[in-house]
């Protein structure tokens, strides 16, 4: 520890920390730690003046190592590393200690205990950073091409934006044609544009784009490699090398089980909203003509039922195959249903319409206007509570309607349309191959909903559209471009900088036993190479995730993870269990 000058910075987090932890006490104890030159506290270390304290201490030569005790490193580790860079210090001579999630928030009722814990965590950070040397980022080349998986609205919009930004794009679509779920729709809300009219120019632009290689009837069968250099095997032996991958695999309509909401009963008059769209499509030009007929039956009354397969509750609704109910809202069905009613009424004004709902979620621009229009048309609304779902049986809907003082009403309808929700398109093969994170709703899970909404933890892979969660066309168009934006920033310079926290092999100790290879979960990350002294393990920095599995099994302690050395772990543990904190 000789010669080390560590600065310790304890953040109040505007009360999130300082209301529980005695930050002054933490600073007082930190000052006495070996190797510590400066210890300070501040309201928001992440704020500009907070970072300024660190920068000033470094520039003045008071410190050459930094420990910040604050929130989770996922929020601000990068912020402080950047402060070190600005001050001219190697960014990895830094340790981020979490005394918020790991102390003040979890020990709210034990202020003294939380403070004591914070002191020990800070001591561990100081002990670790004292043994830290400067590290340099790894750099890999970025192939100027992108694989977009899924040829619906999201995939096409992402492909067009990326092509315009100068990247070669492979647009991979499983079906024989582009367009995705929009191919099944009649018209789109809020303006009533025909889905086919919306799609046509998009498909044409994609097809005419020399930078976009459309691969219909293809799937990404195997994906290897790493950020900047993914190799995809795409149907019929084709291969595509891409710097990044955009996942735009979309959604599936919720399909009620036979018997659920009366669907599939003998002589059933129950259909789903997508099936109703197909009917509307066939009755395209009949406004003013004969009425709506479905399988030969003239339709005079239609009942729409919201939230089928969405907003489900455990104990009320049947779980899906994985044992979970769809407890989420599918976002688009309310307005989609109201829009279908509007279209229907404009074409067949004589049809009586009933709408059975829990909450009308007409949230978006132009949605409320559709709701109002539909109400003006004379649609009769029934509202039910979650634990009193409507029953669809023998061609009628029975609902306990809270709008008429909980009266139980039976709606006799010629046709019953179920507003079915969204579920992610099944992509288990991709999920397994790329280790994609999924949420409890089964949709792909973004790294952070606000800070990184189209990124996932896996570097070089981005999300576009409804593979991530329900959204409408407008929102999908934005999400696809957002994904393109992140790809463009990542690949644009031709080089990608990666964290240096990867395994390092000491070849003087390694005897080539190969135990590490068996333990590594990332294909290609560690391999044997013939050297003059025999076989030795070598690490591919771009593939190694720094998990440390190889470190644990190496019988000769020949492997270490940069920035997380065994000596550093020892020092941290010693500091945490020290007699006197």
């Amino acid at each position: 520890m000789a010669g080390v000058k560590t600065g310790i910075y304890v953040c109040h987090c505007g009360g999130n920390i300082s209301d529980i932890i005695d930050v002054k006490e933490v600073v007082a104890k930190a000052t006495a730690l070996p190797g510590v030159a400066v210890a300070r506290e501040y309201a928001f270390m992440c704020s500009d003046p907070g970072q300024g304290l660190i920068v000033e201490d470094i520039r003045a030569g008071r410190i050459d190592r930094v420990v910040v005790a604050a929130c989770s490193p996922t929020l601000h580790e990068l912020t402080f590393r950047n402060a070190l860079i600005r001050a001219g210090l190697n960014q990895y001579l830094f340790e981020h200690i979490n005394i918020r999630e790991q102390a003040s928030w979890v020990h709210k009722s034990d202020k003294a205990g939380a403070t004591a814990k914070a002191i020990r965590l800070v001591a561990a950070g100081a002990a670790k950073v004292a043994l830290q040397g400067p590290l340099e980022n790894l750099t890999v080349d970025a192939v100027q091409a992108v694989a977009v998986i899924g040829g619906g609205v999201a995939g096409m919009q992402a492909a067009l934006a990326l092509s315009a930004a100068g990247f070669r794009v492979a647009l991979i679509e499983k079906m024989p044609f582009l367009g995705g779920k929009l191919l099944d729709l009649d018209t789109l809300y809020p303006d009533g544009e025909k889905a086919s009219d919306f799609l046509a120019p998009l498909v044409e632009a994609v097809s005419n784009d020399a930078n976009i290689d459309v691969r219909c009837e293809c799937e990404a069968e195997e994906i290897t490699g790493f950020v900047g250099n993914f190799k995809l095997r795409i149907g019929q032996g084709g291969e595509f090398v891409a710097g990044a991958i955009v996942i735009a695999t979309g959604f599936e309509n919720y399909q009620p089980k036979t018997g659920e909401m009366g669907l599939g009963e003998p002589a059933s008059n129950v259909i789903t909203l997508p099936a109703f769209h197909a009917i509307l499509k066939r009755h395209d030009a009949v406004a003013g003509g004969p009425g709506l007929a479905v399988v030969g039956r003239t339709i005079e009354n239609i009942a729409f039922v919201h939230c089928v397969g969405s907003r489900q509750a455990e104990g009320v609704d049947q779980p899906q195959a994985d044992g979970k109910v769809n407890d989420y809202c599918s976002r688009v069905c309310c307005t989609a249903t109201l829009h279908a009613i509007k279209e229907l009424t404009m074409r067949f004004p004589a049809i009586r319409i009933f709408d059975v709902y829990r909450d009308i979620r007409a949230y978006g621009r132009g949605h409320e206007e559709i709701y109002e229009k539909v109400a003006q048309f004379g649609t009769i609304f029934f509202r039910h509570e979650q634990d009193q779902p409507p029953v669809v049986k023998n061609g009628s809907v029975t609902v306990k309607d809270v709008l008429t003082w909980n009266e139980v009403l039976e709606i006799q309808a010629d046709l019953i349309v179920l507003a079915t929700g969204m579920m992610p398109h099944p992509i288990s093969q991709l999920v397994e191959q790329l280790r994609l994170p999924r949420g409890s709703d089964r949709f792909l899970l973004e790294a952070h909903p606000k800070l990184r909404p189209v990124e996932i933890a896996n570097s070089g892979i981005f999300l576009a559209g409804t593979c991530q969660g329900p959204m409408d066309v407008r929102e999908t168009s934005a999400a696809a471009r957002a994904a393109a934006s992140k790809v463009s920033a990542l690949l644009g310079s031709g080089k990608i900088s990666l964290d240096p926290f990867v395994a390092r092999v000491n070849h003087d100790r390694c005897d080539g036993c190969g135990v590490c290879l068996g333990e590594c979960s990332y294909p290609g990350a560690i391999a044997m190479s013939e050297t003059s002294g025999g076989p030795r393990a070598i690490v591919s920095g771009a593939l190694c995730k720094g998990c440390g599995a190889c470190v644990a099994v190496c019988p000769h302690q020949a492997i270490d993870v940069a920035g997380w050395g065994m000596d550093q772990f020892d020092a941290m543990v010693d500091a945490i269990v020290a007699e006197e904190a």
Partner: protein
Amino acid sequence: MTTETIAVRKDALVIGAGIAGLQAALDLADMGKSVLLVERSASIGGAMIGLSKVFPTLDCASCITTPRMASSIHHPNIETWTYADVVSVEKTGNQFHARVIRKQRHIREQDCIGCKRCEEACPVFVPDEFEHGLGARKAISIPFTNAIPQYPVLDIDNCMACGACAKACPTQCIDFLQQPGERDVEAGTVIVATGFSLTPMGAKKHYGEGKFQNVISALAAERLLAPHGPFGRVLRPSDGKIPSSIAYVLCAGSRDKSIGVPYCSRVCCMYAIKQAMLLSGSLPIADITIYYMDIRAFGKGYEQFYQNAKAMGIMFVKAKVGRIREDAQHNPIVRIERQEDNCRPEEVTHDLVVLANGMLPGFDVSCLGITKALDGFTASPHEKSLPIGTSEAGIFSAGTATGPKDIVDTVVEASAAAMEAANYLRHGGAHGRS
């Protein structure tokens, strides 16, 4: 007014440095474009930096705004002007010319070291806008703790010219006679991220026109709940009492033609539920009621959040609030008609009422050379395929400038606008459907 002759040339001009503008500027800068970020307030951060926690994760808002603020202010490709108004944008060929007025802080920024001695010395207290009037600031003050930049603004309207600040300033940077400056900007593309304003408390006369002390706005409630808020705890404004019965009035500034806001403001249901949850955390025995028309918990994880709130005992009452009055102790009394149960009008007395105000456009974009929609927000000729487009090729719009929106959707739109702006720079508008 002093006109500086230097014209600033950048690839992109981003107007507004809330979360939308910050994200758009960062994405463009990360794509190697030079960006001028212009913010009319004295600090970047927008509405988000004033929030307590955010739904549905309950992350603290500061914690996820400050990383974006810090990255943008230090990004080598971003130049930031705060306390500056874009007064016009004109297009010539493929270039945009903007006139920007840099308002006077009455300090020489190049000399200010942010030491706050002026603020400490100033004897004048005025209501603090950042705390929505629930706290006080000095007539010369840095806008809030984690403001960027850390320059004070001397509020000349409230200054009594005692000179205490000038005496206290160690660098003699106070300048009482400072004039605003005008600068010309040339940019290849423009992103409008001018955000929203809250429907005013006085908009609905049935709700007291903002005159009842214990009927507060949603953003004021955010400050009450913020860990570093004005009181550090939840107290009601009239008498500092800890409220034991709190009500939220949803759609208090939305879905209401009588105040000219027919649309849904999209975020109010969720922020009301979030605030209710935070309140029940800090005031465990308080009764919390949410009066609603529909609960629009439509985003990712929102429905589950709503169900959690119900499970926590927050009362959801489907009722439109017709009128609010107050009694002699300033307790707000809400007159409701329950849509469920008996449907008879009734009056309920609460200690504190929070209006779920809606969103209005934060800025009149007409001066930027683009047309606005009937609702006042920006309009795209291709609303579904290019939601971030505007009536002028090369000008894009993101976040609540395009309509009410939550933070997640705002951030996504901001990145989308950055992508389109970068592609416009590359092709001069000769691509896509715009």
